[in-house]
């Protein structure tokens, strides 16, 4: 069969292109608006390339909002969760895939049930529990539970580690290696691509979390970045400084975006590799 460019492929390409434009227009509009002077926003028809380009929103935003505190808190939360959760979840995944221990299946099924219960069911009791132990208006409700395990990561890494040979563990045992060092020195390094993909996902989820910080914190000094930028929103849009709001949104998106661009290969290929089938 000769390969030639069929008209069907061209049509598909055009459809994809239209889709891609739809995906990117809101972001382009955000960038464009963030570089406008406040009064230029209301021109009709909309102006795509701001004249003049005005960078002052990106200077003003740091004093006009709680963004800096938000970034600081989000960094503290994200780094702690990333370090601890990756450790605890991969350790649990290792145990579920390679060790036999009492009640293993029962514990695993138990974890499955947590997925089916919506977060909101736990929200009110958690709020009360946190009030009792003095965690309200601290960063702990965002850090501690998330650091102890992430069910999705456990499932994902368990799947991944099941694909690794069990002989490695036997060999390690013969060499006098304990279970922990078998995990730490042998299996964990072998999971590197899967770990990287999950770290990106986890960072994204933690950085973008809004519900938890909204409920469990109330003073400005404890807001995370999402709550900080949400405060810029006033329901009456005419009173809001829109370019400033767009500049803040862009700053909030940027860290995840950069990480995503750097690690995109890891991100998509690990998913394809592990072959999530549901």
């Amino acid at each position, binding site marked *: 069969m000769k390969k030639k460019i069929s008209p069907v492929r061209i049509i*598909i*390409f055009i*459809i*994809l292109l239209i*889709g*891609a434009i739809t*995906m990117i227009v*809101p972001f382009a*509009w*955000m960038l464009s608006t963030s570089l406008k002077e406040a009064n230029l926003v*209301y021109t009709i028809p909309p102006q795509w390339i701001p004249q003049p380009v005005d960078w002052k929103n990106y200077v003003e935003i740091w004093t006009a909002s709680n963004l800096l505190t938000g970034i600081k808190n989000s960094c503290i939360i994200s780094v702690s969760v990333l370090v601890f959760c990756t450790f*605890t*979840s991969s*350790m*649990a995944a290792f*145990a579920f895939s390679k*060790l*036999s*221990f*009492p*009640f*293993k*299946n029962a514990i695993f099924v138990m*974890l499955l049930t*947590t*997925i089916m*219960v*919506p977060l*909101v*069911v*736990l929200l*009110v*009791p958690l*709020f009360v*529990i946190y*009030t009792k132990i003095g965690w309200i208006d601290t960063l702990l409700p965002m850090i501690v*539970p998330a650091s*102890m*395990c992430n069910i999705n990561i456990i499932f994902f890494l368990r799947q991944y580690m099941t694909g690794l040979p069990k002989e490695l563990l036997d060999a390690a045992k013969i060499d006098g290696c304990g*279970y*922990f060092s078998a995990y730490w020195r042998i299996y964990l390094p072998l999971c590197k691509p899967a770990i990287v993909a999950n770290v990106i996902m986890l960072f994204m989820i933690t950085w*973008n979390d*809004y519900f938890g910080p909204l*409920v469990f914190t109330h003073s400005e000094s404890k807001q995370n970045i999402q709550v900080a*930028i949400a405060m*810029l929103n006033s329901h009456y849009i005419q009173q809001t400084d829109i370019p400033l*709001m767009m500049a*803040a*949104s862009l700053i*909030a*998106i940027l860290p*995840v*975006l950069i990480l995503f661009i750097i690690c*995109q290969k890891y991100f998509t290929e690990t*998913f*394809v590799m*592990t*072959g*999530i*089938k549901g």
Partner: protein
Amino acid sequence: MDCMNARSKDKKGKGKSKLERREGLAGLLFVSPTIIYFIVFFLLPLVVCVYASFTNWNILSPNRIFVGTLNYEKLFMDPKFWKALKNTLFMLIPIPIYITFALLFAYACHKNILGQKVFRAIYYLPYISSIVALTLIWMWLFNSQYGLVNSFLSLFVDNPPSWLSDPFWTKWMIVIMISWKLIGFTSIYYIAALKSIPKSYYEAAQIDGAGPRQQFFKITLPLITPTTFYLLVIGMIGSLQTFVEVQMFAPDGGRGYGVGTIVFYIWQKAFSSSQMGYACAIATVFGLFILVVTVVQFTVSRKWVFEGD
């Protein structure tokens, strides 16, 4: 399986060997953070929620009085609850939309369309972006007077909708936003699923004279039903919990409570009106509702999901 193995070993030799006991201990130790998480941050709050739903608990007064099923009776008479339920079900509309587009997109990528890597990166963009930032952008895009969307629509219609003040259109705006956000992410699953279909199936079909359309409907579509099923389950659980969009677009639930969803209503009841007992009753009913929906999905799935050769 493993438990069975362990048990059969128990019968053969009395007690476990030292090595096995050490392995069991190590395993339990490794999953101990997970178990603690499960008990403290899942089981305990779950039990408290169900218990509290039978009390008149509020955060201001420490004494709780057991009120029986009063909260549940109140719930079924509460018009706002039914409105919230209706609005919540409305949020299921995006699921077929983004699943269809994601499949088409994945299929195109699978056929190696020019520039698919760039396309993929662009399509994932909305998913990785923070939902709060997206709602802020969305509010500006859909601003009724100066928004980009309405200035585009006004080329075709005289009176483009006022998206942010009319609950009906606010809900559609959320539908558009969720569909837009999830197409790229959902396609990852389909790309993986399409890759896992053996090429030999298509070759065999070609020999039998099946055209591309037949191949798609008779081979591709049935073989990826496990992925479709998974996406439906996850999508429903996610959609039914829509909150941030509502809280940002309609902080009071919209005119006549036309936008507020169940999760939003629970949040309002618990933290604005501080009716914690009542909020827990709604949460319990809602949790059961999601459970029933999921179980029904699994039951129905036997009829249409491909289970392997």
